[in-house]
């Protein structure tokens, strides 16, 4: 990730940023443009939207058809550039989901 580490808390305290901060260490599922998904623990994000996941597992369908079974592979720590991200989900309870959706 480029730039210096922001070791001090975000000064202006944007509520959106604090909400995203609460998602740290949660299970995050990121889809990328070639159809694969990566599931890992949310570790870091920068202004450009590049995400780092820890203990990530790659899911990849072994056939082109939508119902294809998926194969998995452990990758460890990965960086998903914002440009190739196509979806981003976190694992949460239904109540929480409502509040997450109500933000925007």
């Amino acid at each position, binding site marked *: *990730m480029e730039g*210096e*580490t*922001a070791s001090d808390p*975000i000064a*202006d305290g*944007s509520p*959106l*940023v604090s909400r*995203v*901060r609460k*998602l*740290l260490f949660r*299970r*995050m*599922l990121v*889809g*990328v*443009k*070639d*159809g*694969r*998904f*990566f*599931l890992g623990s949310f*570790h*870091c*994000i*920068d*202004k*450009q939207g590049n995400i*780092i996941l820890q203990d990530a597992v*790659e*899911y*990849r*369908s*072994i*056939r*082109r058809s939508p119902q*294809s*079974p*998926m194969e998995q*592979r452990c990758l460890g*720590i*990965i*960086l*998903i550039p914002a440009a190739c991200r*196509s*979806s*981003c*989900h*976190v*694992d*949460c*309870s239904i109540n929480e*989901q409502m509040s*997450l*959706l109500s*933000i*925007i």
Partner: protein
Amino acid sequence: MEDRGGNDVPASIPSGEQMVWADVSPLIAAACNDLHDGELIHGENFNLFAAMSALEIMDPKMDSGMERNGFHSIEEAIENGAAPIPLSLDRTVDVQRCIDVMDHLLSCEATWHRGHSLAQTVFSCLYLLRIERTSTHPLLHSYCRIMRSTCDVVITAVSDARTHEEEDFFTTAYSLPLKGDGDEKCLSLLNSVEETVSRQLRACKAQASRKKLCDGRGLELAKKHVMSCLSELGSMSKSVEFLRSNAGGPSDGEIECRTTASGKQPFGFDANINSRLSAPTPPRAIQILSWKQAIEFFEKLLNDMDAIFSLPLDLSLENILQFLVQFQKSQPDLVARAHLQLLLVQDGKLYGKYSFHVVISRALVLPEGTSDQAFQENEFVVQLGQLTINLIKILCTNNAWQRRKLGKILQDWGVISIQLELAFRREFDEMLKVSADEILFTRLSKRLIVWAEEKTYWIASRFLLLGFQLELYSPKEYCMVYWYMYVIFVNLLEKMQMRASYPVDDSRRKGKKKRDLAKDVGLESGVCASSSCMLLQCYVYISEGLTMMLAALHNERQIFKISSPFNSEHERFIQHFELLQRANVPPHISYHLFMESTTHVRISNVVKHNYFREVQRILASLRGSFAGDSNKLLELHQLEQVIEHNRIALSVIDQVGASDPSLEIRFEFQHHPFFPVAVVKRS
């Protein structure tokens, strides 16, 4: 945003219990908007350094799982008809396509030998990956089986020899299906298929036989096998026109880079299908060798193998070392070198036949009365045997590796020579329980010491000479290099002459192989040894002559002088000869000594001394003794050229005056790999 995953999470990735996947993309996008440049959202355990090592998804150099618009799996590729069996319902087309597959596989195999991964080369073949599918197509099936077991055999040989470096060769097969039941019988399978094929399809007969020795009962058989493989490669080359005209493929210009003889793209290959298997290395874009290059590659490999199989099995160690040096000159492939090593050292024995104490005792000409048992158990003999094994193995590696290791083992050889010197009398007195004949022990151990020292100097000379092949010396350093070489050659020559002077007492030899041994020893310490000594004497004079010539040019013209502010001459001396100095080879050699012997040299002295004239005299008398040895004769010729040119150059410099600024002097290795020729020009 076009995407295949969409916002829908596939059902096969479950969320936690009582949990759902909530889309956070909008939240993240908005939050990122609020972030300042360079700001990150991260937890307390975040470590930027660790984060730097993250694997970057969708980076083609890091992400081996990236989809490349190809098939997602072997199964999908096969279901989509990428590797049909039969290759065509039209039998003629089927055969043509089958040959294309074989050709391409051959190119893949050669590419693999050149250091690319198995997964991206041979195993890019869908037929090979699902070999059981091919069982209805006997020709393709047998070829795939042979290919698979050949890869397995080669990997085993190379891994056993352990002379490969990471970039040389990928012995790692990851999870590729390399072994299959019944692969060891692949040759008979192939034979039966060939019979059928030659009955059915005469035109394609030449294609069915495969190279490589899967097993060999003796070197004769192996040689025959190599010959038949070479002739098969020949007939394959001849079949090009036929195959090409049938295929109606691309034009001649384009065909050069094609991987098949017909010039057609083969069926059933997907270079990306295994990209995930090549992890942790990211998949690299590779170029498969062309069919023509592949044929040339295998021809060279087979010729190298033939040279190995032609090596007579009763050679003395000296001859083996010479053979190894000579063999390396042809720059043999890793696979050939691995086989040579495995042939020479098997189960800790030479050719798997002679223990190394026997090999050493042959070279020593043991005095009568030496107990074989005691000799064999002597700790120095055991150690020297081990050192000799290591030496042979090292001489089978590539040049760079060889030089590194030779520098290291010099120390061991140096140490053992000193230990021998210190301990021999007492040790041998106890070990060889022969009548208290002090003279015998002295003679024996003296021989052992001389032998060990001779080998030490031989290793040192090889170490220095390899520096030329690896281009490690700059012209400014030639003077010190030739000076050191001169010193080493002088010492080596001294030891060789001492050994050659041993009386050949074959009448007193005992043991079963009496006649063999006597013949061998007689040959070695007689004619051969004396001509080797004379050749070495030439090296001594040439090195000395070059040293003096270079030193005079330093002194009188200030050329080839090290004047770098970074590295003084003394520092370079240490850099080049540190390993030799540390091993004390030869003893009492220092930079100081080098300076002493070169600072006062003038061109006129060099001319007067006429080192090169001496060499010419020896060379003339050597011709006769090397008659029949083409390699040696070639070298004599090369040395003559070196001498002649340098002699002329020297007299020109002397006549014109070394300090004449219009003279332009360069040293070039056009005639000999490690003795240059002075090229003098007037501007």
